[in-house]
């Protein structure tokens, strides 16, 4: 009986001992198990979220993409390790990848913040610069009969500028940058076209200057009246004895920049003319009128040259009946190529000139540079 109890006790003792040893081994192994890289993954996720908030996906695209790719690879590696036997798991590679993800995410956040600040600053500067350029364009070229395409580009640029400002207001600097790029391109195109048009027009300035100097010299020499019409200034100047006596505001045809080429082009001719007929109220519907000898010899030569070069057909009429007349003061260019004064100014001019009075019509009495400076100073 005693012996059986003793045996049982020994057996139980063995079992307890085995269990204790096994438990000890299990606990020991548990602590020896490789630690899953949870914290490192959390840190990486936080770094990626911070980078994304800093718009790294936009401003540090590649680095941010690499950070995400490293995180995904680390995650895949972790999964793979979890599929292995518990004691054979090795998280070294996953740790390397996730640390790389954290580091890249942090760098991409810094880069993004830096880039965003730069883009914010640069777009702000571009907005100011473009607004300034647009204001100059509006003063110089917008009032002129510039080509439709040029005006369209200019207005598109203005619209894109508005869109860019809306994007900036929403802190979408990337979109603002894109819109501003398009706006600047369109503005530059329109500005260049307008500038080239004016430069080409002012190529005739030396000729205009010479005509006017000769006209005034003639007026002085012959102690007679001459009329000088300055298109850019929109003025009609009356000289007598070489001195400026009167200045009148005038209006032209809608396409007043450039020379008259043919009938119906709504352009006002440029050149040296003279009054061939004085028309009082009974002979004109425009209050009073001074009929000029358009087309003169130069006009005819140019007209023939244009036909020879195929600019327009031989059937095109050169036009005529260019006058200085009344009914002006409408504040816009409305004639078919004539020069219009207010009726009261026309009365004065009509009284002071006679048939054969020279009339010199020029683009400008100023150089392009001076004209631009004066317009901007207004």
């Amino acid at each position, binding site marked *: 009986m005693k012996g059986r109890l003793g045996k049982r006790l020994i*057996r139980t003792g*063995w*079992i307890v001992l*085995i*269990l204790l040893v*096994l438990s000890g081994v*299990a606990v020991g192994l*548990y602590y020896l*198990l490789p630690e*899953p890289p*949870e914290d490192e*993954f*959390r840190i990486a*996720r936080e770094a990626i*979220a911070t980078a*994304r*908030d800093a718009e790294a996906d936009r401003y540090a695209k590649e680095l941010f993409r690499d950070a995400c790719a490293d995180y995904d690879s680390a*995650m895949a590696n*972790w*999964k793979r*390790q*979890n599929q292995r036997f*518990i004691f054979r*798991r090795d998280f070294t590679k996953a740790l390397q990848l996730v640390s790389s993800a954290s580091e890249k995410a942090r760098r991409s956040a810094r880069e993004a913040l830096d880039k965003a600040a730069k883009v914010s600053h640069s777009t702000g500067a571009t907005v100011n610069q473009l607004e300034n350029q647009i204001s100059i364009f509006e003063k110089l070229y*917008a*009032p*002129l*009969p*510039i080509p*439709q395409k040029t*005006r*369209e580009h200019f*207005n*598109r640029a*203005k*619209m894109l500028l*508005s*869109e860019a400002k*809306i*994007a900036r207001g929403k802190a979408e600097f990337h*979109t603002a940058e894109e819109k501003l790029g398009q706006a600047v391109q369109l503005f530059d195109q329109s500005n260049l076209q307008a500038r080239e048009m004016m430069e080409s027009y002012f190529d005739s300035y030396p000729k205009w200057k010479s005509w006017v100097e000769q006209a005034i010299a003639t007026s002085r020499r012959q102690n007679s009246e001459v009329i000088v019409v300055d298109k850019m200034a929109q003025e009609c100047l009356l000289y007598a004895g070489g001195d400026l006596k009167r200045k009148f505001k005038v*209006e032209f045809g*809608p396409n007043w920049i450039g020379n008259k080429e043919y009938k119906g082009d709504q352009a006002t001719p440029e050149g040296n003319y003279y009054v061939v007929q004085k028309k009082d109220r009974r002979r004109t519907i425009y209050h009073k009128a001074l009929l000029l000898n358009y087309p003169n010899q130069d006009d005819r030569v140019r007209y023939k040259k244009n036909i020879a070069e195929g600019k327009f057909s031989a059937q095109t009429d050169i036009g005529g009946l260019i006058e200085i007349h009344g009914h002006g003061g*409408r*504040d*816009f*260019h*409305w004639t078919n190529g004539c020069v219009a004064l207010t009726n009261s100014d026309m009365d004065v001019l009509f009284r002071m000139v006679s048939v054969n009075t020279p009339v010199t019509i020029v683009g400008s009495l100023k150089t392009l540079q001076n004209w631009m400076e004066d317009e901007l100073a207004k």
Partner: protein
Amino acid sequence: MKNKFVLGFVMISIVALLSSCAKVPQAEIDAANAAIEEARGVAADVYVPAEFAALQDSMNSINAMVEAQKGKLFGSFTAVKEKLAAVTTQAATVKTNAETRKAEVQAEIETLLTEVTALVGQNKELVGKAPRGKEGAAAVEAIKTEIGVIETTVTEATGLRDSGNLVGALDKLKAAKEKATAINTELQDVIAKKAGVRK
């Protein structure tokens, strides 16, 4: 014999303990992922980007939790399941919010389209009544071209709207309305001044 039986039982228990981990809640994970995809499907990343990003962050965090639990001797997915349920609910809310915001943007677009079209029509009428101003025909031409550009912008915005880019369409229309309103004010002021002079 009895000894062997006890030892066998102990070994099986240990093996069972070592390999017994709780089961990964794959059905819940799939449901959460599907809910997130549904939210993405209604362009939640466009209309409620912050909410959608938070949703993705939560899901990434859960994926890491799953792996962490899988790696443990005595892993438990209870907390994971709770979080998955929360994400699935959150995804549904984000989807609803995105749809609401999208509907708001759509409504805003339609309102702006009506307003801008009306302003363009009004501006065209006013151009005819306006005095030409000292810049004359060029000024009128400038305004006409500006109106033309507004019309082009409206067409572009409609195209963007039809292709699903509502945010882009909205921004274009806002800019168009700003310009159309400016022209309208300018024209009305000029006409009012002219009328004042006539009196």
